[in-house]
């Protein structure tokens, strides 16, 4: 089987929708923690197909949206250094820093290249030994192993013109910060690809401590509807706990080899999340054994950062407290072409998802 087509099956989608409709619903709020889920839901228009009692809210799971402005400012500072190229995933190039985005900095002469994999970063560094490459690493547990492998490889090859500027983040601590806030959320769709690495055990403590229902979901329409069905059942029956809908990929223990590679290269640190602030143990820092490839150690840059733009509700939107349409900038000063806040930058950011897809009703 090809693992894709069957999970887009129209008949199964209809079955799930009709089963969801048969549940004895009351108004419930479900947060999809992962930006990829937000994207898939909006792309298929699943939120419109669900009964009106079920409200879907987007959480803090878009790495671009939670990247603080200072990180972008520093990445730009690296890109402006002589004989230095800043490498990054495409998602980051349009994110506004305090002054400009990487894309704008590039047109002003900064050296910025978009890569798809850290393997490309290594191969650039090998080909041009007299040029420095700084990789701006963003993303969660799913993306961090690619960075860890590149660091290990750089160490083996003594590739000294390759540096990592690291802003990897981890999911449960940020989720806990939200849950602890006592948000009016009835249940959570858990991030399937993060859990392929970490296992569902990542959320055990959180779920037990706060007695919340959580379903770890895949990304196809069938996956998401099945997860909403399972989660709604749990909510209606006042059950808490973890169910794995995405069983073809996610196990309770996850990928132990990947976990040990992550642990070998990174250690937990306090990370600053845009809109949420500093959260202890929610970031990954490069261990001292790899300090030689840590841009912040080897090549510190300082920037003068500004406070977040006035009136931008990104923080509260990320927490699911406010809707993008409640923000004074939304659709006016803040559009996908000229984003004010990070939630408008990425196509999976809550604000852009609203901007692009919500206006259809």
């Amino acid at each position, binding site marked *: 089987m090809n693992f894709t087509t069957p999970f887009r099956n129209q008949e199964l989608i209809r079955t799930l929708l009709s089963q969801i409709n048969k549940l004895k619903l009351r108004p419930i709020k479900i947060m999809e923690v992962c930006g990829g889920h937000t994207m898939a839901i909006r792309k298929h228009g699943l939120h419109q197909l669900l009964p009106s009692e079920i409200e879907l809210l987007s959480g803090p799971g878009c790495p671009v949206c939670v990247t603080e402005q200072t990180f972008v400012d520093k990445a730009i500072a690296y890109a402006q250094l002589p004989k230095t190229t800043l490498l990054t995933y495409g998602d980051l190039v349009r994110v506004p820093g305090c002054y400009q985005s990487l894309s704008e900095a590039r047109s002003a002469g900064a050296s910025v290249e978009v890569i798809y994999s850290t393997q490309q970063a290594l191969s650039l560094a090998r080909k041009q030994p007299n040029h420095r490459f700084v990789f701006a690493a963003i993303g969660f547990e799913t993306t961090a192993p690619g960075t860890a492998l590149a660091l290990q490889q750089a160490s083996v090859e003594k590739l000294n013109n390759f540096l990592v500027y690291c802003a990897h983040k981890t999911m449960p601590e940020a989720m806990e910060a939200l849950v602890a806030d006592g948000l009016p959320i009835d249940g959570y769709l858990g991030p399937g690809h993060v859990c392929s690495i970490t296992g569902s055990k990542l959320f055990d403590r959180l779920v037990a401590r706060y007695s919340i229902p959580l379903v770890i979901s895949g990304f196809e329409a069938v996956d998401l509807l099945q997860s909403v069905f399972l989660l709604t059942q749990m909510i209606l029956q006042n059950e808490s706990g973890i169910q794995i809908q995405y069983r073809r990929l996610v196990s309770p223990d996850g990928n132990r080899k990947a976990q040990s590679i992550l642990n070998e290269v990174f250690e937990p640190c306090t990370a600053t999340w845009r809109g949420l602030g500093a959260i202890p143990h929610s970031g990954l820092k490069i261990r001292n054994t790899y300090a030689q490839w840590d841009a912040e150690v080897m090549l510190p840059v300082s920037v003068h950062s500004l406070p977040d733009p006035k009136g931008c509700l990104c923080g509260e939107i990320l927490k699911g407290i406010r809707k993008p349409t409640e923000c004074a900038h939304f659709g006016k000063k803040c559009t996908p*072409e000229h984003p004010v806040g990070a939630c408008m930058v990425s196509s999976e950011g809550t604000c852009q998802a609203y901007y692009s897809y919500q206006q*259809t009703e």
Partner: protein
Amino acid sequence: MNNHLIQLGHGSGGRMSRNLITQLFARYFANDTLRPLGDSSYIAGQTSQLAFTTDSYVIDPVFFPGGNIGQLAVCGTVNDLAVSGAIPRFLSAGFILEEGLSLKDLEKIVAAMAVEAANAKVQIVTGDTKVVRRGQCDKIYINTSGIGEIPEKHAHFTRKPAMQPGDKILLSGSLGDHAIAVLAARENLYLEEPILSDVAPLNHLAQLALEQPEQVLQMRDITRGGLATILVELCENQSFGIEVLENEIPIKQPVRSVCELFGFDPLYLANEGKMLLIVKNGTEKDILKRLRSNLAGANATLIGEITDRHPGKAIMQSVVGGKRLLDMLHGELVPRIC
């Protein structure tokens, strides 16, 4: 944010390109002929109306599966004329060459231009060449301008099209072949079923559609910015909206796969031999039959219609049945991890 520098997104064919055109070029060059900002401008000729258009071509790599920059330069301009209801007649060709470009490559490009020009029944009647220092351009840039004649029976193309709810939207074939062929060549992607650029002159297809000229309200060449950008342009600020069905839009499997891998939306990918037609309600079967009689239109299909339900908006019904608002491309198209 500061926008005092040209960014790659300004050349992407999406919203930024559109703003650059309307806020700079069209502002300075303002005149009645230019104002509609269509694929060609209509100019009063001695005997018949003329269509006039220009386009510049830059591409990396210069040679790609299914064609080269020369074919693009001829077909692109021919297509702008063809979808404007014109019979393409004459082209100019301006070349900017990088010092060090191999003459053999240049000849290959020029020969391909000659073949496409003959195929499209146009003549290249004037040209120019400049050479810049190594590093000041990327191998070769070509500009072509084209003039076509508007037959009397196509005169309605020179006026604002009169779209009515119920009018149908046709697409001449699969989306994204050109963009993915070029990407695959640039990134060394191997595709089990090779995807070739769809670069081709559309004038024969346009002529087939126009055998009954009154049936066709408007045609558009779907290039950079992709289908979504064109659909938005068509209905933005209009009294009608557009509704299309995702299920009906043909996309080849390898194109779909590469899109999923890199996080591209095929609706925004560039094409070089595809057109969109708005046709009168009830004529669609007739026109599809004529389009499909030509190889370039073999996969032509009905993808949607004009509606009065949501004026000014282009909406796509997803495979699953939900609805999604289409917008122009934002910035440049880059691979994503999310």
